[in-house]
């Protein structure tokens, strides 16, 4: 091992250890600590000058009290459940909206495709915050949607959409739509057109050819897209806090408020640990799916 190789490995390694792993261990530690009226507002703090006895004492004081608290207070498990539900429902809606777009893109003339791709990617580069903000003016009581619906005469009184879960669904579908479209498009683009022709020659109607051939072959793209929407939606903060109002419970928002408003660091840390445990299942499933894909391609 020469010095250059060691530096090359050590620099990014130490950076990630210091700014990713260690901070996470601190979260874990504070989640096991008790709240205190002090600076910093938790106890115990590790004091290495006390020697071995102090270290043993430090570990003795850690407990799972905050986690017990999370199971006892309704707010927390309600917001975990509600996050899972909101993320799942909006993933499903995103799939329903995104699939036809990806399908139409894959069937469009060759020379259109780079432009269509760019049009899907462009919003992804635009500020997330601004894209969510744009919907406030549309969904509010005197917003554009209500103005339009009142003008067409479909409704007599404005609909209340802003500050409801519906607004959160709209926000998630809108901001994460490119993540759904791109993997489905990638799967559909590779599809061999002669398979569908064969199905139609053999007597399938166009609809049943889609159902029996296209849809099953695009499944990897659909699965990847669903994970790419579901995983970030689960811990979402900006969308529920701007569009969801006070009645929408999502765990990212609860963590934020626990930390910034209640200044309860140990509980905020415990919420973070549980959120991460919740995310591990879909992440592992996603990894497995991607690996299978790669193996299938090789």
């Amino acid at each position, binding site marked *: 091992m020469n010095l*250059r*190789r060691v530096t*090359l*490995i050590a*620099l*990014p*390694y130490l*950076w*990630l250890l210091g*700014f*990713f*792993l*260690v*901070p*996470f261990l*601190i*979260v874990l530690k504070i989640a096991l600590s008790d709240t205190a009226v002090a600076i*910093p507002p938790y106890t115990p703090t590790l004091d290495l000058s006390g020697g071995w006895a102090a270290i043993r004492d430090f570990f003795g004081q850690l407990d799972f009290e905050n986690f017990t608290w999370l199971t006892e207070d309704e707010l927390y498990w309600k917001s975990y459940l509600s996050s899972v539900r909101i993320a799942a429902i909006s993933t499903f809606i995103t799939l329903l909206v995104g699939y*036809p*777009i990806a*399908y*139409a893109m*894959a*069937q*469009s*003339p*060759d020379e259109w495709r*780079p432009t269509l791709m*760019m*049009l*899907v990617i*462009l919003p992804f580069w635009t*500020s*997330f*915050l*601004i*894209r969510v*903000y*744009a919907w*406030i*003016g549309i969904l*509010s009581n*005197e917003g*554009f949607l209500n103005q339009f619906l009142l003008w067409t005469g479909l409704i007599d009184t404005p609909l209340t959409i802003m500050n409801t879960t519906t607004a959160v669904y709209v926000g998630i579908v*809108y901001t994460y*739509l490119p993540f759904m479209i791109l993997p489905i498009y990638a799967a*559909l683009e590779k*599809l061999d057109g002669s398979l569908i*022709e064969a199905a139609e020659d053999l007597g399938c109607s166009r609809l049943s050819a889609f159902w029996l051939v296209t849809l099953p072959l695009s499944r990897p793209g659909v699965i990847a897209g669903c994970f790419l929407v579901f995983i970030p939606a689960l*811990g*979402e*903060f*900006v969308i529920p806090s*701007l569009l969801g109002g006070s009645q929408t419970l999502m765990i*990212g928002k609860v*963590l934020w408020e626990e930390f910034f408003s209640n200044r309860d660091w140990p509980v905020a*840390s415990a919420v*973070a640990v549980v959120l*991460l445990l919740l995310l591990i299942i879909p*992440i592992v499933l996603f990894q497995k799916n991607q690996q299978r894909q790669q193996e299938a391609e090789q």
Partner: protein
Amino acid sequence: MNRRLTWFNATSLTLGFAFLYLPMLILIIFSFNESKLVTVWAGFSPKWYGELLRNEQFLDAAWVTLKVAALSSTLATVLGTMAAYVLVRAGRFPGRTLFSGMIYAPLVMPEVITGLSLLLLFIAIGLDRGVFTIVLAHTTFAMCYVSVVVSSRLMTFDRSLEEAALDLGCTPFEAFRLVTLPIITPAVISGWLLAFTLSLDDLVIASFASGPSSTTLPIKIFSAVRLGVSPEINALSTIMIGIVAVGVITASLVSKRAIQRQRREEVEGVRA
């Protein structure tokens, strides 16, 4: 696939792109609205852009944001490229699994957790929060994105080119500088751009990592937006959307030309 633009496909493309672009279009149109009322059109006026330029707070925040983005994206590009090189080329070394885990984990980690954990670290080591801590935070998550972009390029290119350079007497560093780097440069640039926009755009992590003296533009926008829609924010959004649109379109044209040139060179190389 058989290419036919049926009415069904045409409808879903039209509706889909209308859904993606109409909200932003409305925002842009109403940034030129005379009235303070954001949902009632009262004539064309660029006055909110003037207001914006006189708003010291927004200008300060914009300056902080640009500084943070420039610093953190550059640092992230250096570290991320190193990390990608280590992942793809360094072979086995102790702790490799942990290393690749730490590269991929931040990509799926909810921002609230990343932000919280970094804030707790800064407090634990007694670091005053400000521009510096935001740069550290952004560098950490952006370097992972950079390394994913760069490593996918490193994986696909022909390794025998590097080996040839080594055989012809290059030191490993020279081989990297003269052969590897020019080939991966487009990926490094797009990694830098990605890191830059991620930093410009980030609200959650910056909120945790910033101190009272350092406010970035997204933090400013977020606190203004909580009070409702304002024409000034519309004007600001329009400027940001404009910059991104111009940037992305230019970048894609440039990279398209670069790819075409590379292909041509490869073809000529084969002939020669």
